């Protein structure tokens, strides 16, 4: 009796197993990998759910992957054995790899001149130019912009005013002056030091762009494939010298290579007056400042006042959404429709309030300046849901959130500020970051270090090109 029961159960299970997929066949399943696991991931899941509610026949599932590096690695390995998502978020440094791997269909090719896809309008016209230019490869829009950031300065207003600094610093010289003025507060133990920020290679890239300088040849790899590094420049030297001056005067607390947590902690707890960080941290830093009880003010990333062209502009950072190639046309369209929804005016505005990543559209900025009740744009972190922004003008109420948009919006678009693109981007970061780190901490022969590193990086780049470039 029992045996018969088991057999019947087995047959039933088999039958169900074959029937359920048949029933569900009409729904297009899409998987999207994103490199967040905090409230930013919650926002993405919520937005995917909103999209799913609009389309009975599409189901987008978000999957959280540890970080940008891991996502690239996992996707690469996934390609080897055929288990990869339809949509993947790749960070800026992976742009060249995304192009060279031939694993993605470019957004502009998928859209192919259409005005809308599955009811979601295609309007890339109001995307901020420096953003659209970054992800344009050979004149083709490669991926859909989502989380876009840029470095900005964060100031503790009370501390600076206590030291008599009434104007927020804008240049490297301003920062050094402010630090000299703040030194008495350090000496009497009120604060630990004048400034701290993550020692990240990303800032070095930004400062090169600000000074209108290229990281690699062929105009940052934008005019043709990059084949050589371009570290032997006054701009790069100036960055090393600035760090050295900050550090050797005791103005700057160094918390390790590419460590983001400790500097943020020091600043938000009021122990340091000046910090630089991604605009993506604006939301978290604002809340930290409020909790500690100081007034936060932001400005654009400090620049080298002695650069021949002054401040030219900044590069964006962050990541974009790519669509895997080889999908069936209806799946490809579903993925594209989702990304259009994901980055539309309302969602781009809401995403900005959730994090501090800049809204990629000018229309989103306009929307945030002219709010109405029932907007449901503010991401409420504790409840994990959208609520109304209860003000007419988000930027009037939260002026620190406008800094990043202004910085990118006023950037001159050229091949320095479009940022470099080359295959060994992520591999090279510790090298050119390491030279500045070594010089900051120990001094030494900067020219010799630059020459050696430039040669090493060029060799790595040429090896990469040999494996990837078209013959």
């Amino acid at each position: 009796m029992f045996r018969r029961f088991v057999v019947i159960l087995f047959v039933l299970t088999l039958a169900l197993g074959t029937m359920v997929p048949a029933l569900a066949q009409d729904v297009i399943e899409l998987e999207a990998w994103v490199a967040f696991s905090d409230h930013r991931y919650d926002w993405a899941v919520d937005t995917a759910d909103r999209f799913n509610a609009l389309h009975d026949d599409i189901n987008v599932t978000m999957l959280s992957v540890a970080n940008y590096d891991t996502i690239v690695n996992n996707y690469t390995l996934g390609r080897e054995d055929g288990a990869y998502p339809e949509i993947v978020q790749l960070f800026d440094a992976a742009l060249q790899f995304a192009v060279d791997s031939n694993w993605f269909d470019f957004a502009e090719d998928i859209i192919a001149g259409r005005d809308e896809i599955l009811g979601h309008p295609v309007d890339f016209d109001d995307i901020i130019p420096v953003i659209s230019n970054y992800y344009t490869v050979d004149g083709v829009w490669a991926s859909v912009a989502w989380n876009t950031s840029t470095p900005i300065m964060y100031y503790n207003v009370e501390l600076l005013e206590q030291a008599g600094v009434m104007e927020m610093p804008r240049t490297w010289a301003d920062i050094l002056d402010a630090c000299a003025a703040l030194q008495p507060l350090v000496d009497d133990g009120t604060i630990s030091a004048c400034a701290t920020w993550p020692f990240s290679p990303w800032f070095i890239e930004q400062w090169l762009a600000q000074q209108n300088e290229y990281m690699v040849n062929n105009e940052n790899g934008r005019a043709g494939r990059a084949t050589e590094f371009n570290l032997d420049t006054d701009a790069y030297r100036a960055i090393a010298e600035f760090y050295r001056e900050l550090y050797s005067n005791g103005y700057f607390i160094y918390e390790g290579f590419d460590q983001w947590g400790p500097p943020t902690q020091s600043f938000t707890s009021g122990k340091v007056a000046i910090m630089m960080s991604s605009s993506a941290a604006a939301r978290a830093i604002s809340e930290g400042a409020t909790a500690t009880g100081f007034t936060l003010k932001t400005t654009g990333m400090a620049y080298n006042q002695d650069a021949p062209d002054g401040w030219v502009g900044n590069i964006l950072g962050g990541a974009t959404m790519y669509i895997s190639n080889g999908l069936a046309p209806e799946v490809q369209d579903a993925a594209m429709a989702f990304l259009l929804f994901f980055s539309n005016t309302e969602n781009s505005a809401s995403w900005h309030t959730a994090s501090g990543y800049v809204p990629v559209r000018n229309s989103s900025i306009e929307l945030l300046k002219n709010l109405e009740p029932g907007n449901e744009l503010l991401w409420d972190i504790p409840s994990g849901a959208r609520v109304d922004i209860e003000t007419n003008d988000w930027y009037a109420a939260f002026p620190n959130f406008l800094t990043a948009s202004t910085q990118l919006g006023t950037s001159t678009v050229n091949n320095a500020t479009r940022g470099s693109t080359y295959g060994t981007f992520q591999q090279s970061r510790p090298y050119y970051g390491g030279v500045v780190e070594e010089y900051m901490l120990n001094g030494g022969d900067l020219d010799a270090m630059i020459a050696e590193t430039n040669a090493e990086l060029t060799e790595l780049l040429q090896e990469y090109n040999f494996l990837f470039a078209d013959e």
Partner: protein
Amino acid sequence: MEEIAYSVHPAIVTLVGALLGAGYFAFLRWQTQAGGLNISLGVGALAGVIGATLLTAPLGYCMFQADQKSEDIIIGWIAVLLGLMLTLNLFSMLLWRYFRGQRLLPRGDTTPGAFRGRFGLLYAMTVLSPTILVLVFFVYLPMVDTLRFSTFLARFGAPRTRFICVSNFSRMLADLDYHSNLFLSFALSFGIIIIAMSLALLIASMLNQPIVGANIYRTLLIWPYAISPLVAGVIFSLLLGTESGIVNRVLDLTLGVKVPWLVTVPAAQISVVLASVWNVIGFNILFYTAGLQTIPKDLLESASIDGAGAWQRFARITFPLLSPFTFFLIVTNTIYAFFDTFSLIFVLTRGGPTESTFTAMYRVYVTGILSSDIGKSTAQSLILFLIVVGITIFQFRVGQRRVQYGNY
């Protein structure tokens, strides 16, 4: 066919192998006075030829070609030496068995309970096959791939690869940064092993005392080992941050000082050692506690009746009897220190400041995983593998003589 120009002709390499093999076997013959000289010389020469070609011939003797750099030729000779070490040892063992009239291959276990009879081997293999399959697919085949990739310029996702002979290795030979990575691996490992083992022995000895709640202490002390090195790194980065770390907070409040634990030399190196020690010490305590319980009480009692003090009992009885455990722990701790600490370093210092905690294994991770430069990183991992195998063989040779496996 075009003639390939060599700076060292393969024939010479083979001849050198044959001569070295014959010489070594003649030396063995002279030392042991066993068997015939001619057969020794013959087998020695054969072993030498196989050894010299084992690692060089599959690569087409590329490292000895005229267009290679002097470093490549050095790597070539190292490959010859490694091949010789392997074959000479194997053949001398076989010859020794032959001279003593034993079967060349051990016959297998004939004690009761072994798999015998017509289907014995088949049955044994069937039962063993899951293990063997797992080993083959997840250990041996990847190792073969590692060997192969180490001679290539290769990246994940690249449409092509390029055979570059032993350039990945010769580049390391010339790379001063890599030398300091290796040196650092040895130095940090030495520190980790010495501290983790002596401290573990001390703690285990104290735990062996009859105290109230010994079981609870034991559990709590072993617990850090259950934590992965990565998580240990996170815990220590929260403890040791310059401005926001708990340790500096306490130091600042009590002594008014802040130590830049993770961003200065040698504090960063000391921090990495201490964090690793904390991570691995539970494992050592576990084994030492077990070891101490195997030491016969009557031996210690009679020693104390004879007037031996606590230190004498420890030095003359306990420590020597613990030697199998010590030996085992040295081997496992070496492997931990060399291979497992990279994730801890990744979280704690990113190899910094200025590469002062950049160990050789961390380099493998950065090159292979973060930069997907798999040719170079497999070559680096092979070097590490050889080093750890070398250390382990050395430990077995030196250690085993002093280890006492008692029948108590």
